[in-house]
């Protein structure tokens, strides 16, 4: 800091400028402080990785890989312990697939409408209104799935149990729908008008222009929206915890109860689990699996977004 102050004093202005408060040590200090704020994000990432890795390694000193990946039973809290992760993975995938099959058609249709048909005023109103859906706390959706949607589903399909994968999946679909519509709309909107005009010039109808030209041109943006939404669905916790049940069944039947990875983490930590026990380490091992799955999705999203920007879309 002294050096910097000294060099500031030796600078151009010294003859005519009395006591300038210029680029002295203070400037450098502030820049460093601001840099630290930004670097905290890197520290957070390192923290997440370190915590997950540390506890997961301890977990695998007690449980072998084959017990984890080659068993179809998950009963770590029982006397007869099984550590097969697949029931949790299947529960997670099942609810996520249900959510995406609701969110993708709705979200894409809404995006196409907003980008290709709606006027600026409709868009200015509908877009933020849809985004309200993403702002509702998930615990509220969980309550709604359990208390409102499940009884309705049961009225139509008697086989649906009180806790099931279908109801939270559907609600989750509604929740992530604005994520898909918003990002896809950005991508569709960025498609240059010349492409549309080119298609019209060939005599294409509006619909075939949209589906043959505009949507394909915006493909990577739309796919990025979907991968982001999938990641969100995989990581969603409270809806599936409340309405999905807590039974790690290795099943793809949406009418029965399931347990997702996130729901398992919650069900263990509701109680008091002492550090160092296998139960405690289990939630970190499951957390690592969850992190890997969501990170892969986020990574693909970032890649796709970057490549779509690179093309000037």
């Amino acid at each position, binding site marked *: 800091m002294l050096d910097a102050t000294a060099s500031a004093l030796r*600078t151009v*202005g010294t003859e005519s400028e009395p006591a*300038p408060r210029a680029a002295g040590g203070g400037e450098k200090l502030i820049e460093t402080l601001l840099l630290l704020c930004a670097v905290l994000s890197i520290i957070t990432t390192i923290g997440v990785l370190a915590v997950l890795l540390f506890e997961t390694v301890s977990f695998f000193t007690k449980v072998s890989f084959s017990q984890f990946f080659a068993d179809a039973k998950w009963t770590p809290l029982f006397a007869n312990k099984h550590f097969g992760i697949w029931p949790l993975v299947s529960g997670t995938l099942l609810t996520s697939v249900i959510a995406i099959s609701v969110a993708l058609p709705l979200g894409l249709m809404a995006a196409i409408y907003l980008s290709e048909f709606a006027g600026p005023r409709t868009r200015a109103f509908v877009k933020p209104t849809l985004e309200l859906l993403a702002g509702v706390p998930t615990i509220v959706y969980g309550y709604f799935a359990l208390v409102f949607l499940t009884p309705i589903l049961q009225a139509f399909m008697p086989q649906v149990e009180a806790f099931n994968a279908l109801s939270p999946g559907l609600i989750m679909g509604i929740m992530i729908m604005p994520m898909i519509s918003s990002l896809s709309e950005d991508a569709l909107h960025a498609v240059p008008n010349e492409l549309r005009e080119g298609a019209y010039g060939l005599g294409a109808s509006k619909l075939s222009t949209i589906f043959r030209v505009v949507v394909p041109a915006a493909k990577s943006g739309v796919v990025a929206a979907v991968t982001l939404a999938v990641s969100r669905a995989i990581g969603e916790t409270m809806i599936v915890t409340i309405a999905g049940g807590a039974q790690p069944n290795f099943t793809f039947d949406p009418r029965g109860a399931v347990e997702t990875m996130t729901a398992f983490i919650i069900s263990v930590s509701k109680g008091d689990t002492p550090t160092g026990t296998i139960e405690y380490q289990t939630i970190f091992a499951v957390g690592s699996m969850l992190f890997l799955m969501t990170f892969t999705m986020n990574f693909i999203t970032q890649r796709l977004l970057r490549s779509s920007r690179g093309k000037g879309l």
Partner: protein
Amino acid sequence: MADSAHKIHARQVKAWFADKQILQGVDMAIPKNQVTAIIGPSGCGKSTFIRCINRMHELVDVARFEGEILLDEQDVYGSDVDPVLLRRRVGMVFQKPNPFPTMSIRDNVLAGLKMTGRLKKSEADAIVERSLGKAALWGEVKDRLKEPGGGLSGGQQQRLCIARSLAVDPEVLLMDEPCSALDPIATARIEDLLSDLRQNYTIVIVTHNMQQATRVSDKTAFFLHGELIEFGETDSLFTHPADSRTEDYITGKFG
């Protein structure tokens, strides 16, 4: 070498944006307390050249500079030079009037001093009146100094920006096409102002308007493709250009 008649000496000034070379090695001595105009077609490097003088060029990430620019005797690219302090001696007025929107007229004038922590409260009123007076704006705004600067007309805003630069008390004033966003009447006001200011300041004005150069400047430089083609007394450059390219440009054959 440096001499008392010239304020700025540029030697072999070369500048790049990424891989694109904008200035090809410009040598130029800018006279003290005179108005020097720089003309040339778009993209000839005239704006880049004056942005090199107060080291605004290097603010762009991909920008690069080579050469030497002396202010009085001192190399402004010397390792011990602080560009911040340099810019207090070499002020700049930009193409589009850009008063600070969150500040009143008065605060805009004082902005440079206030922001750099050099304002003595007791002197503030005098500085505001003096600077606005020099910028020929005092009479029009003296009753509404508390109002926002953005509420003035375009021409008034540009004079406010000039007053803002003068308040810092620079020795050199660089003007980057200061009238290109203004109407003819506002332009005339600024041009009148320049002839008053030249007594105390060294002024370098970039313009794409050749009439303006003839009206306001003592000397004129013609830039083309990043080179200084011709530099001389304004009258003789426009009446008897030495270089055929200068002649082609001023007679409107290109550009």
